């Protein structure tokens, strides 16, 4: 029983690299299969003559077979060269690098707020203590999960920014400018996580170990926080991957509404304009983060649940 830990880590890393490669390749094939090509993108709705087409093809080496372009891309990727954006005419590493920080800050802030809210809501409304509060909370959560974040953002802006002037509509550096986007992004996350957590807490409260805990004379608060909640965290932690997807997807909308810099708009523009080097870089980066997040989630599960450590 029990593999050497080094081998297990190596296996994990190797699996991660495979995931990255599959992600990049799938994205490449998807863009290749989509109608139109890079030349169409660069010409857009502008002037289109054979001479212009020939110039663009020559500039980007698009006359090479797709396989050669793909292998060339992989080769450069391995050497840390992400290439140049067709559309923005700048190195992809630069395009993504300068947008990484704002996205990261927003994601971390929103995830933190979302998880905190969910924890509080779950603990306060779990069990049968306050049925009216539970109903109210559960209805609100459903509403938040089902409302497009576009709408949440506009409503928050209209009230808190345009009417009362509490927060600025846009701006990256100012901390006040972070508040509304964070809330907008965090609310749907809080809504869904709260449902999952409360469900878990409810089920845990019916378990025999809670009865044991209560019989040891522990207060209800300690039973909830130390035992039931811990039990309920497991299914919530497995949602980490979903959380990451929500953050990235939500960022597209949030950045558009709030005029924020970030990876969301970069991704959207790159996909709609078939800016292959940027799309591939974003997909690879997302896959990397996804692998890291899921690995972290597995580790956290080990911490939360001692039973997993033995298997």
């Amino acid at each position, binding site marked *: 029983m029990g593999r050497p830990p080094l081998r297990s880590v190596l296996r994990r890393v190797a699996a991660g690299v495979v995931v990255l490669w599959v992600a990049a390749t799938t994205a490449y094939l998807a863009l290749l299969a989509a109608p139109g090509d890079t030349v169409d993108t660069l010409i857009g709705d502008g002037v289109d003559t054979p*001479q212009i087409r020939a110039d663009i093809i020559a500039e980007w080496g698009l006359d090479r077979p797709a396989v050669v372009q793909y292998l060339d891309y992989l080769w450069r990727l391995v050497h840390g060269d992400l290439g140049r954006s067709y559309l*923005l005419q700048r190195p992809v590493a630069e395009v993504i690098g300068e*947008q990484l920080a704002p996205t990261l800050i927003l994601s971390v802030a929103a995830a933190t707020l979302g998880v905190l809210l969910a924890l509080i809501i779950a603990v306060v409304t779990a069990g049968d203590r306050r049925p009216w509060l539970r109903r109210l909370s559960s209805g609100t959560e459903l509403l938040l999960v089902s409302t497009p974040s576009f709408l949440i953002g*506009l409503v928050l802006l209209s009230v808190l920014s345009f009417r009362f002037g509490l927060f600025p*509509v*846009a701006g*990256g550096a100012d901390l006040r400018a972070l508040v509304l986007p964070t809330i907008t992004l965090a609310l749907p996350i809080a809504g869904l996580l709260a449902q999952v957590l409360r469900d878990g807490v409810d089920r845990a409260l019916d378990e025999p170990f809670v009865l044991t805990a209560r019989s040891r004379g522990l207060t209800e608060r300690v039973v909830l926080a130390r035992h039931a909640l811990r039990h309920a965290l497991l299914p919530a932690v497995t949602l980490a991957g979903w959380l990451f997807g929500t953050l990235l997807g939500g960022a597209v909308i949030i950045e558009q509404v709030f005029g*924020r810099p970030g990876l969301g*708009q970069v991704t959207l523009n790159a996909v709609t304009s078939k800016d292959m080097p940027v799309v591939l870089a974003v997909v690879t980066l997302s896959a990397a983060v996804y692998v890291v997040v899921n690995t972290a989630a597995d580790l956290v599960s080990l911490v939360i649940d001692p039973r997993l450590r033995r298997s």
Partner: protein
Amino acid sequence: MLARRLSALAIPILLLAAGCSTTATTAPAGAAGQPRSGGTLTWAIETEPLTLNPHQYAQAKARLLVWNSFESLLTYDDQGALVPWLATGWQASADGLTYTLTLRDGVTFTDGTPFDAEAVKANFDKLREQGYAPGVAAVQLRNLKGVEVVDPRTVRLVLTAPDVLILDFLASPQGAQVSPKSLREAANLKAGGLDVVGTGPFILDRYVPGQELHYKRNPAYDWAPPTADHTGPAHLDGITYRFLKESAVRIGALTSGQVQLVEGVPATDVPLIDGNPQLRLIRELNSGSAFSYYFNVSRPPFDDLRVRQAFREAVDVPTLLTSVYRDTATRAWSLVSPASPFYDKRLEASYGGDAAKANSLLDQAGWTQRDAEGYRVKDGSRLTVRLFQSAPFVRDRRDVLAQAVQAAVKQSAGIDLKVSLVDQGTAQEAFDNNSYEVFENSRADTDAGAALNLLLHSGGGINRIQVNDPGIDKLLEQGQASADLAERARIYAELQQLVVAEQALVLPLYAPADQIAASTTVGGVRFEPTAGVPASAYDLWIGK
């Protein structure tokens, strides 16, 4: 002397009265008082430019940024005539093959490089370099043979064929003068940035992609064009352009005082501005070509003149424009914008909106049967025409307008207009396969002749409807070769009669316009003469 001087006021006033219907270029003085120096403003704009290098310019929505830090050799006044800017004058040889430009003295790029004939030559040479600006090299500079430095203050452009549009190029963003040092050393020349500089009244000193651009005043600036409201350095210390794509957010930011100016005000938000005494709204028609549907004549059913005419008669344009844009849109009668000196006013009220005529034309053309859904049928096939809209380029609610046209032609004439909102690749595929019947387009060229060349010449770069008519080609070539504006106006009027009235190749819908909403404390809010897009920040100032 072989060369002759082009008059700066070459367009007869009569022609303007007949052809021009632009509104006043400068907003009324309002509450702002007298111009004064100092302060900073924030302007919320809809579009983040894809590039900050003017040579690579392709977005009319980014034009207001270009002239902050870059300038061209010539510019247009509000009469549509060319006037000096970085060039003090120009002479064309009698054969139209040589243009000699004299350059302004004492101008420096903001990196300290002097502006002289060598700099102008460096710009042209760069523009014609393989892979740098393929669109410019293949269209605007198609007839340019070479550029000669006569002396430090004089350059000569030598052409292979007479091409008066070279002057339009000299007044365009792509013809803006970039410091030769930037051309040599910039890290990402085609993307532009802080290290790609010009001679303008402002200096770009901050770019946060996805968020904003900031310009600071160029204190050494002293070469404003004659079209500006003042001379010397700009009034403002600096200006921030913030990218806010959502119109509701732009308007909210304006009404709550977080920004002082916005551009791009949709019809639905106009009442919000009009109802607020602290704000005012001005609008101006763009130059170039009107937003129009072009009929693909290379395949049925639009190879038949009667079907083209019928489609046009089946649409009651004013009703559609009112339902989609309330009363903010200006109807177009020609594919040339009513703001252009080449606009042919005779086309007004000469066609359209007659459903009975549409039906009788279709009957004559043999589309006499109707199927179960009410569409016309001939030889067992339905009268279907397809319009592909490329989603990334749809603006001004043109998708909604297309639906309105679709309903109108179905109801009044039994024509089946299939509208597909697709990605650029799919639209391109339809063009490549010639599997479309309607093509929609508007262009913002300052010289409408440039747009007409692209759209209607048999070898034109946007001739999507595959017009191949020697008569049209000849008129276009004459219009490009003639240096006399009155003569050009006559040629383009004849062309419009041919294309719009006789051949019904096009259904003009509306004249694109730009709007600026601004706080009444901001003075000098204006549009760029002729182009009709928001002007640079040079004349802006903050009142009390």
